[in-house]
């Protein structure tokens, strides 16, 4: 899988590359408009991370050109601008997702996996890990083909972990993903601990071969036993 990161800030580009490299993707980067448009038209990418503000042009221009040539790529816009207008404009021009800076690496990771999975659907829309299967469409989780009952938030947490297999998910990233932006003030996300505890119990009761490991004071990691 090839991913192109179009981002003018080299440090951000570097940290994103490093994070995605852990997922065994092949990463290429472009730091300005010209390099980006050249790469986009010469090569094929499975996913493009696109910054809106670029030296020499805008990400919107690249979207426009991509649309004209009819090239098929999954595009995630990463922008510092959190404006609904830009979001709608980007999505209407064929972008698949829109992520506002600053974001968590886990969130970016989940989004990349999500758009890639959507593309290579091949009739199945499930995430699998160990003996656990999560059906995204039907919102069902089964272990050894036996369905287990999860509430909406437990399902969202598990889905997020499955999109970040073996990666650290900070509590903040998890809270923002599952509970939304509105919960941001609550500096203390200790309440998540209880949610994880419940989820862990349900997984254990059903003899799941995966487990949620706590990383001291920071977050969690989904691991295969």
């Amino acid at each position: 899988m090839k991913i192109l990161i179009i981002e003018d800030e080299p440090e951000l580009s570097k940290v994103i590359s490093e994070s995605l490299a852990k997922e065994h993707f092949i990463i290429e980067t472009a730091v300005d408009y010209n390099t980006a448009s050249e790469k986009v038209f010469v090569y094929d990418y499975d996913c493009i991370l696109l910054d809106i503000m670029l030296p020499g042009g805008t990400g919107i221009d690249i979207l426009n050109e991509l649309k004209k040539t009819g090239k098929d790529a999954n595009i995630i816009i990463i922008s510092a601008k959190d404006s609904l207008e830009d979001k709608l404009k980007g999505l209407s021009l064929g972008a698949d997702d829109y992520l506002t800076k600053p974001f968590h690496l886990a969130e970016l990771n989940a989004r990349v996996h999500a758009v890639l999975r959507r593309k290579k659907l091949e009739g199945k829309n499930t995430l699998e890990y160990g003996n656990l299967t999560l059906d995204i469409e039907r919102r069902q989780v089964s272990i050894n083909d036996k369905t287990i009952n999860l509430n909406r938030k437990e399902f969202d947490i598990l889905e997020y972990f499955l999109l970040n297999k073996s990666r650290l998910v900070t509590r903040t990233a998890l809270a923002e993903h599952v509970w939304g932006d509105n919960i941001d003030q609550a500096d203390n996300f200790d309440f998540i601990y209880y949610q994880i505890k419940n989820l862990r119990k349900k997984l254990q009761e059903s003899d799941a071969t995966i487990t949620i490991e706590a990383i001291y004071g920071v977050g969690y990691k989904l691991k295969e036993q």
Partner: protein
Amino acid sequence: MKLLNQTLRYISIATLIIISIWAFIFYFIILREIKNSIDEGLDNYKRQIIYNFQKKSGIETKTSFDEGFYTVEPISKHSAFSIRDTYTDTLLMMQDADDTSPEPEPVRMLTTSFEMDGSYYQMRIINSMVEEDDLVKAMFWYFVWLYLILIAGIIFTNNYALQRLWRPFYRLIQQLTNYNILKSDSFPEVKTRTTEFRDLQNAVRTLLAHNAETFEKQKQFISHASHELQTPLAIAINKLELLLEDENLSNKQTGHIADTIRTIERLSTVNKSLLLLSKIENKQFFDNRPVCINDIILQSVEEFEEFAAYKNVKISIVASDKLMVVMDESLARILVSNLLRNAIFHNIAGGKVFIEIKPDSLSFKNNGLRQALDSQRVFEAFYKDAANTSSTGLGLAILKSVCHLYRFNVNYRFEEELHVFEINF
């Protein structure tokens, strides 16, 4: 007071003073003119009478004015030479047509002397004079009428002229009142040939252009500031997140990194809130449509469910009716979630949140500190109680700003041990 009325006030006072002074002077001029003309008449009479005497060649002595307007008395030559023609004002008992009995009436009297056939005579001729108080009275009324007619004329002209001349001015004011820096795409413009109004219009346009430019720059500044701040924040957080994945870290090191991430995230939250605040104030969210507040509250409560459970806070909703408000939906969400977060966040363990929805108001009541907050300052940005360092102190400022945008009335009170935030739509 309208310009029209103010001008009128000054003009009417000035006219009154001018007319009064003029009336005073005019009275004496007229009086002198009258006397001059009577005196000429008396002089004519004198010559006429003497001529008649000469024709009849005989003089009847007449000592009283009973049935005529002159007296003739013989005098000595000596006294005749000492008499010069003199005109005097005097009073004489007379009975006019409108008098019931004789009254003293003012008369003008000519005293003269003449010589006929060697004898000397003294003659006095009278002519009735205008009564001064009658003159004053008549003139007073004439001037009152003149004044009233003048004022009426001035009002009329003023009204007409002012309305016509000041029309461009009033139009400019009207356009300025309707001007909105966000919505208007053209500056106020009126057609006028009056230099002052042209100057005013130019000044206004220059000022507005400057304002619009500043406004545009400010918006750009905010957008740029966001970009400039968000990216370094993203880099810092993401680098630390990567670092955390390093298996070789000790627990202590992990803890330090986690603390640093939390601190940066707080910074990021403040930055986001400030951006949100400026966006609200710049009306960048303004997609108004009817929004059902009840639904938004239910969704919000669900979002905060686990947080509330963790804080051991119970939320109860009493809805007497469906509350529909015309506003931007994302702002409605921000409004509700800020109220709810505030009510949970500042609550006590085992406390409660009562949400009351009425057809035109919404109130959140919660337990918390057992004393009232400063109701003047509670909505100020960065107002927070010292014990709670983790809050940004911007939640209620954002709430206030949303309410201000839509002219909703939001207030805080402390009632029956509960902190009450109420919005009237």
